[in-house]
């Protein structure tokens, strides 16, 4: 789960990391915008809140000198659609006088297992800019935690006093564990005449963590899900709506992405990614197909299931039932099913007028044709 910037800001404030004064304006508060913004000293930065990267380049971070300007800019942002997402919130922040921009981040990594601390004397949007400032990488073993010597090393690299940097790094490391964060990024971290201020930030949390401290954030996140994704979550599916009209349904993220790539490669326009996850049982496959069929934009469906131990005949019966219950005229369904009792499964599909394919390529060719 990618957190909103304002959510990350609150987490940082909770662990004692200085941030700029700001006020959050949601769509519903649009009429109180000026009043809310007036609580923040100008001049301003107005930032669209989005669960993705790249808003800066898209013009969704804007300076404003007056409240009039804030109002105009913020109203322009609220409700905007960008990258498949609606701007539900804007953050109106005081514009901090920045003497120097730094970059600091921590992320969980796998091999060897630990947390990476990245620090660069050059803040800013681009990785390349960071690299120019020299990117310091410190590996924190979870069994040692953040040690003072690391703080000293990072401080030296950034041209800061260790005492000045210590509370920030300790706060970040604490937040990473307390909030089950996979990534926490201060970019830029501003050197100002009143010390270090984290004026922009990103965070990604492990939504499977079951961490009670994330429950408020999770419920906001879930409240923003469309019907499709809400229904998918109920079944434990992973659904990502896309722009086109072909739904790609499969079991396993890798396999389903591979099918998606193959469809796009063959000139098709994927409109839905739907991963059943583990356990391609008959009822789950049936539910997934019904869900795909319920999407008005979807004109074609590719079901690609490598059953393995599950009986293909059962899965085939589930698919046929789904079509009978939720089939839409003019929606073409192509199935590729492999595993135990495959022959019997193909027979059942054929009898129901479904096209059973032996390979992914065949199925892709069929669905885009």
């Amino acid at each position: 789960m990618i957190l909103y910037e304002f959510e990350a800001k609150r987490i940082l404030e909770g662990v004692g990391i200085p941030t700029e004064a700001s006020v959050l304006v949601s769509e519903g508060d649009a009429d109180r915008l000026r009043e809310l913004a007036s609580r923040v000293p100008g001049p301003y930065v107005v930032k669209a809140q989005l669960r993705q990267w790249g808003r800066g380049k898209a013009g969704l971070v804007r300076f404003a000198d007056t409240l009039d300007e804030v109002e105009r800019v913020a109203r322009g942002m609220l409700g905007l659609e960008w990258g498949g997402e609606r701007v539900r919130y804007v953050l109106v922040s005081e514009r901090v006088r920045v003497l120097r921009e730094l970059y600091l981040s921590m992320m969980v990594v796998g091999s060897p297992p630990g947390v990476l601390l990245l620090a660069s004397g050059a803040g800013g949007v681009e990785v390349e800019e960071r690299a120019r400032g020299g990117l310091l990488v410190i590996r924190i073993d979870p069994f040692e935690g953040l040690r003072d010597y690391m703080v000293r090393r990072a401080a030296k690299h950034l041209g800061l006093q260790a005492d000045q940097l210590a509370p920030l790094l300790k706060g970040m490391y604490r937040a990473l564990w307390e909030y089950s964060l996979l990534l926490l990024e201060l970019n830029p971290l501003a050197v100002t005449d009143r010390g270090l201020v984290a004026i922009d930030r990103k965070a990604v949390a492990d939504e499977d963590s079951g961490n009670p401290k994330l429950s408020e954030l999770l419920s906001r996140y879930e409240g923003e899900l469309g019907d499709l994704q809400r229904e998918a979550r109920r079944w434990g599916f992973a659904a990502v709506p896309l722009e086109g009209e072909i739904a790609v349904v499969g079991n396993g993220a890798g396999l389903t992405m591979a099918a998606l790539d193959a469809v796009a490669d063959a000139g098709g326009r994927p409109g839905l990614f739907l991963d059943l996850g583990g356990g391609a049982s008959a009822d789950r496959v049936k539910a997934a197909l019904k869900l795909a069929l319920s999407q008005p934009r979807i004109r074609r469906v590719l079901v690609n299931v490598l059953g393995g131990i599950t009986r293909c005949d059962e899965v085939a019966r589930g698919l046929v039932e789904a079509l009978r219950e939720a089939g839409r005229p003019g929606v073409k369904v192509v199935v590729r099913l492999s595993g135990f009792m495959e022959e019997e499964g193909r027979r059942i599909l054929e009898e129901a007028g479904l096209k059973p394919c032996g390979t992914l390529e065949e199925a892709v060719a069929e669905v885009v044709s």
Partner: protein
Amino acid sequence: MAILVDERTRVLVQGITGRQGQLHTEQMLKYGTRVVAGVSPGKGGSSVHGVPVYDSVEEAVREHPDANASIIFVPARYAPDAIYEAVDAGLRLIVVVTEGIPVHEALLAVRYASSRGAVVVGPNTPGVITPGRCKLGIMPADYFKPGRIGIVSRSGTLTYEVAMRLAQAGFGVSTAVGIGGDPVTGLSFWDVYEMFLGDPETDAVVLVGEIGGVKEEEFARLYAERGRGKPVVAYVAGRCAPPGRRMGHAGAVAFGATGTYEGKVRALEEAGVRVARRLSELPELLREALAR
């Protein structure tokens, strides 16, 4: 030889009395895997498909001192505990099938295992198979034919797809290892590649990656620096996935410039790894790599 598992592997199944545990114990036994004991707290004394069940790993290992590997089917909430229990009982190979283990808990458990010299495969892995000799996992065995190609993969079903295509093209598999789809896993691509390097029964390696994380990039860096002992051919899923969206349940999400398809392919190719743009290209690339 092969890597990780072979005919000497003696398996203990943790969570053997659950639905998945029972099903896959049966499947492993059918395949010929030597499953010597199962564990399920409170169910000690019973048996599953003829395999005796114990209350604790410690008891199971005491009664079956030949046990040298464990496979864990315990639900996510209890799975970390099962890993610690297996490590403390002295098991040195632990396959964690369970998905949905909180990443930070997995981080600690996996690090703990390594500190005690145990290898964790997974979490969120289909397991390990050395075709014809030992299956320690949940993969449909039919897709895997014996041969001389090593497979290392972040994916589950995509691994089966790859193995099937290799078999159709006449390539068998020495060992296939699912390192697991989660952001933190016990083994990296490099760890497994290094094992294949030391395995005389493996001629080349197929690496199956995905967008998200930096595991492919890390492999590429190490392969460029130290590797190249055996040819590696790769496929990376997720070329058309939109950035910032989590594709599936685990680690497949690109954040900003991190974990993108382009970044991974560039890193791999610069390191000397041929990357198939389509699955269907894999056998041909493999043939070329072996010919060189």
